[in-house]
């Protein structure tokens, strides 16, 4: 067990370092932060002086090592653009992103499973076909188009939901939340649905396929033959078994939700991390960009790590293979 755990841990750290290095070397191609930091009046000498001060003239690997050294200490430096510590900026915006991702995941899972089961059971019903066709739009329309359409429909035409922002937030000291005010709850509806659509359609199709497969199996046939109620067969016997792969995939996809929230946050002016990142890219704010990439890589690696460990605990086959290999 310990052996397996350590192996995974070392792998995870390696992946993070590689991801961090690759993204860090890309920063050389995003432009010159100094141009954005000083006015157009600044002389060439002053620009050079600032480059020197920021260490931008050092080779990439020196800059990278310095960055990793600071990151391990929890320091990500000060934003070039906002002149504030990056760790503080991220901490300020993390709650907004996590609340958005949490609600989106909830919407995606609940409605995805319900609709998936329905379409799995009523394979050729009219409603099933309509759901599947609509879900096709969910997969194929880009997020920003859906977001803008929602804004025009619900904010401009119907006037029932706010067009942007997060509403009033309540500061709980360690966390600022939009869940405690009416305007905050109203504000999260459109962005969370927009962000959830892709995952939702994904889950619908996955659950549907699983259900259809399981409903063909022998134990379901026997259950039917025994005269067990249809609902009990569908939900207790079939769905329960069908959910295992769904949980795994959804777990991994929550990480994707964090990453994809960038677009949703930009469209809805949602004050989260993704929005901070996009602004940082425009400004070439390297401290924010690198801290964000490290964070997202960390989230992905952590989720994968937890999933791997969970597999090990749940699935005896991996455990046995591992033990045979180590003997």
């Amino acid at each position, binding site marked *: 067990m310990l052996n397996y755990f350590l192996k995974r841990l070392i792998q995870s750290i390696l992946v993070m370092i590689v991801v961090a290095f690759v993204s860090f070397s890309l920063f050389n*191609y*995003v*432009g*010159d*932060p100094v*141009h954005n*930091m*000083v*006015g*157009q*009046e*600044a*002389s*060439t000498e*002053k*620009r050079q002086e600032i480059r020197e*001060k*920021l260490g931008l003239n050092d080779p990439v690997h020196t800059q990278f090592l310095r960055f990793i050294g600071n990151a391990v200490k929890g*320091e990500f*430096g*000060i934003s*070039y653009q*906002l*002149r*504030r*510590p990056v760790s*503080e*900026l991220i901490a*300020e915006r993390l709650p907004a992103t996590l609340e958005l991702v949490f609600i989106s995941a909830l919407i995606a899972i609940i409605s995805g499973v319900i609709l998936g089961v329905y379409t799995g059971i009523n394979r050729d019903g009219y409603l099933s076909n309509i759901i599947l066709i609509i879900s096709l739009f969910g997969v194929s329309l880009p997020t*920003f188009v859906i977001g*803008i359409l929602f*804004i*025009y429909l619900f*904010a*401009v035409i119907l*006037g029932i939901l*706010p*067009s*942007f*922002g*997060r509403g*009033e937030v*309540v*500061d*709980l*000291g360690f966390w600022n939340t939009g869940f*405690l*005010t*009416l*305007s905050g709850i109203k504000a999260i509806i459109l962005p969370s649905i927009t962000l959830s659509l892709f995952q939702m359609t994904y889950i619908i199709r996955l659950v549907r396929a699983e259900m259809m497969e399981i409903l063909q199996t022998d134990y379901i046939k026997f259950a039917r033959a025994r005269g067990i109620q249809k609902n009990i067969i569908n939900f207790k016997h079939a769905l329960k078994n069908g959910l295992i792969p769904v949980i795994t995939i959804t777990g991994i996809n929550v990480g994707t939700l964090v990453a994809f929230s960038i677009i949703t946050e*930009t*469209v809805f*002016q949602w*004050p989260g991390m993704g*929005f901070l990142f*996009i*602004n940082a890219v*425009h*400004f*070439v704010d390297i401290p924010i960009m690198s801290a964000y990439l490290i964070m997202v890589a960390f989230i992905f690696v952590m989720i994968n790590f937890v999933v791997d460990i969970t597999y090990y605990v749940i699935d005896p086959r991996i455990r046995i293979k591992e033990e045979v290999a180590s003997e």
Partner: protein
Amino acid sequence: MNIKNLMKILLTFLFVGFVSPVYSANLKWSMPGDSLTLDPHAQNEGPTHMVSRQVYESLVTRGIDMSIEPQLATSWKAKDPETWVFDLREGVVFSDGTALNASDVEFSINRALSGASDMIELIESITSVKALNYKKVEIKTEGPNPILLNQLSQIFIMSEEWSKKNGCESPQDFDASEETFCSINALGTGPFKITLREQDTRTVFERNSNWWGDQSQHNIDKIELLPINNDATRVAALLSGDIDFTNFTPAQDINRINSSSGHKVESTPQARTIFFGMDQGSDELRSSNIKGANPLKDKRVRLAMYHALDMDAIKDKVMRGLSEPAGMITFPGVQGYTKALDTRLPYDPEKSKQLLSEAGYPDGFEITLDCPNNRYINDEAICVAAVSMLAKVGIKVNLDAQPKSIHFKDLQNDLSDFYMLGWGVPTFDSHYVYSFLLASEGSWNKVGFSDARVDELVGTMLTETDLDKRNANIAEAWAIVQDNMPYLPLHHQVISWGSKSNVDVPIRTNNEPLFRHAKVN
């Protein structure tokens, strides 16, 4: 959760439910980005100044029509060509009630000249600032400086006591690891004070009841700045009533906003001119098929390119009517601008071809045009149109459109043969254009233009205090430049402000709203 937090939550409910409708003259203002910092000397950048200007004031300022007006100073005179004395206004206090005096002015200008201040280059001719007494300030410059007032209108005055007490005597340095108090708080003498600051989300300004000015010239009790980056979302927010006013209205949505009965759009030429630079200094172009020679050195080639551009078509098709075709690279209101110089040479592709043949390029040549794609209004689309117009006269242009952070980096590193650039003039004086774009050593002179007489004139523009002589110098310099055509003028940008019909914010050519003149009816 403790009692205090519970109270906060309950109060928030109360606030949402009851308090907000009580403010009769609230104004919700939006722009794509936020102020980068509340420190008034740390960033010389548009939106940052737009926010600071509501809170901070300067010795002199620009009114709605952009002319220089007294603000914190009521009068000034030049004791000798290098020494100015300013008399400060009586009865000015900061929004916390402490009085403004001459030592605050001395402190603020010195602060703007120190450390990582982004204002240093603007006022570097100032050699010393001294408070003579409580209400008198003496400013000495290195040599005579006829545009000192223009420059001082950009320098905001802070409270010395407040700054020192909070540890921000100088603007924050780039490699500092702590934020400063002054970058997230503001204390000025202006008509508004900032009561809430959430970067990129919400900034609340409230009426400063201690302001020295005429409180009845505006009726705004509270301004909320709500930045919205996405154009479509910002327009939707305006149409749905979530915001009242934006000074960044995308051209493609103007008709949509005008067609709504409760909204209006106003437009005015902006203080920014867009042009192409052509490298005529290098002996060989980097991106051309012509080797061993630089076609752009030949004035006939530059004129041929000028005659090939149909700026009226670009105005109609690309800018949706929102541009003013330009004949010179600066705009109305700048000292030295004349309508005659700003008249474009005619669009004439036949003449272009003829000029190209005379210059020895009857089949044209190949060149790369570098263009930003997120800096100026429709920048990339203008370049695309120009490429096809130049193709018609035989010049094969390859377009390289990139984000501004890369575009300007390449320009700074002298990597471009042919590029787009826009130039605003905060001082409203031709010297600003010449010292950066046309002097041989100008830091933005990336076209390699060099003319001994122009260099001489740039020097005298800075020191000649006889205004008639100085204007004659400026006119002579423009005559030389217009004759050589080192840059291809394109157009002056036009800006548009959209708002609810009952909101009146006077539009200004520098795109900076002055809410001290705003009315909500």
